[in-house]
């Protein structure tokens, strides 16, 4: 088994697989490692209707094609393989993978994606699969003729709330703010549905029940008024957080935990690039992840070539005039939260940091 690669891609979602396709086609020895199933969040998408060139396909179908493409060009894909340690400092990067051993590479692309945001309540874990769900398409039919709650205020929450009215007697949308983040068309469609009611400015306090969920307890954010919503189902669509907590000692993150890059998707560590939902950017779509994967791969190819010639690639922040990180590349702060600009431009790191992946 090869132990040294030109580029190791951590993450096999849309960004990571695209990077793999471009790298392998450029004859880079390429390893793609993912702790979970190949496809990332894309595989969790039941139907993709706006991927250019593909009229309608499931996320799983697009993933299967992308993987085949990457492997056909020679990329090696390791799924369900946890990265346990990394050392990104220095010219040779080290990636230690559970059950597979240690691999080295000249460049690393971090395409670690996002993980669903959770409320963090103890009762949330207790009722997962017993009333709490994250997929209306998968679990909607369990709630035929029942009262349910949808938590969230983005496009996913409102679209799924409408979709769940096919099964449920009533759908209560619970949202933390006094306005929705969803697009106006999604809000209008939800408001026009007689089965949907809205509870705004609410904190979810607790999920209660016995063998399965019976009610959701919420509190008004300003008045503190407690409401107990009888519900046998609760669907959570409260967004994603970047899967980067384990990278904080290795590359610069902004205040929201997103990897900071320049326009070539270089991080502050030479030879380390970032792509997809894990990096600071405004829009997170399959198409933007694919674009990121392309750019990061091409930049990584350039880095590997420059290393072969004996010249080092400059990390982000080294040449701010040539490739500045603009504020538009960082995601806007969540309502009520200040954006952290302080770490957007940093000097390259010198230390050889190693830390366990959490």
């Amino acid at each position: 088994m090869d132990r040294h690669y030109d580029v190791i891609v951590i993450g096999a979602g849309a960004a990571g697989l695209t990077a793999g396709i471009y790298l392998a086609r450029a004859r880079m020895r390429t390893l793609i490692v993912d702790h979970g199933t190949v496809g990332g969040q894309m595989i969790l998408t039941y139907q993709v209707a706006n991927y250019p060139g593909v009229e309608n396909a499931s996320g799983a179908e697009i993933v299967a094609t992308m993987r085949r493409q990457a492997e056909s060009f020679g990329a090696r894909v390791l799924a369900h393989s946890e990265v346990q340690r990394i050392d990104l400092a220095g010219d040779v990067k080290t990636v230690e993978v559970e059950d597979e051993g240690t691999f080295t590479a000249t460049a690393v692309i971090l395409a670690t994606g996002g993980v669903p945001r959770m409320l963090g309540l103890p009762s949330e874990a207790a009722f997962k699969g017993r009333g709490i769900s994250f997929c209306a398409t998968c679990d909607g039919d369990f709630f035929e003729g029942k009262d349910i709650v949808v938590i969230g205020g983005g496009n996913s929450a409102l679209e799924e709330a409408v979709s769940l009215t096919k099964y449920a007697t009533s759908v209560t949308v619970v949202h933390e703010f006094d306005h929705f983040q969803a697009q106006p068309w999604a809000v209008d469609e939800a408001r026009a549905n007689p089965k949907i009611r809205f509870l705004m400015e609410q904190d979810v306090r607790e999920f209660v029940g016995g063998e399965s969920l019976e009610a959701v307890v919420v509190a008004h954010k300003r008045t503190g008024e407690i409401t107990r919503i009888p519900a046998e189902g609760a669907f959570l669509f409260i967004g994603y957080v970047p899967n980067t907590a384990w990278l904080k000692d290795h590359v610069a993150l902004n205040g929201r935990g997103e990897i900071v890059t320049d326009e070539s998707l270089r991080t502050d560590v030479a030879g380390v690039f970032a792509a997809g939902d894990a990096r600071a950017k405004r829009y997170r779509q399959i198409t933007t992840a694919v674009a990121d994967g392309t750019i990061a791969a091409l930049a990584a190819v350039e880095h590997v070539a420059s290393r072969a010639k004996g010249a080092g690639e400059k990390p982000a922040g080294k040449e701010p005039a040539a490739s500045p990180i603009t504020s538009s590349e960082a995601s806007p702060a969540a309502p009520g939260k200040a954006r952290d600009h302080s770490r957007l431009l940093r000097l390259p790191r010198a230390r050889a940091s190693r830390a366990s992946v959490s």
Partner: protein
Amino acid sequence: MLHTNLKHIETVGEFKELLDSGAKAAIVCGRMGPMCIPVYGIMEALRDKYPDVRFFDMEFDSPVGMATIRSLPETRGFNGLPFTVYLRDGKVVAATSSIQTKQQVKEILDTRLADGSAAVAG
């Protein structure tokens, strides 16, 4: 039809035979949906690492699914796909609902299905 590399359980007889054999087994009962596909993948990945455990899938909407896993007392109250059950010594020793991580699956395999562990449902 489940498009996985796992062996399918397609009849009630096959399920009963497996249960009666006392074998250590994991069965993922689901559809080809977003929450199920990752769990099939985990089982495929773990298959070689647990040679003493047999890994299967079962179609959730099939007659066998309705007559077996969906009717077990251990899956009462479940309403998240997939339903995953673990068998040992002719009993259901663990059952989970909804998507799981590889770590969660390994934890069950390493405890409930490990030699010397008690065969207690939960």
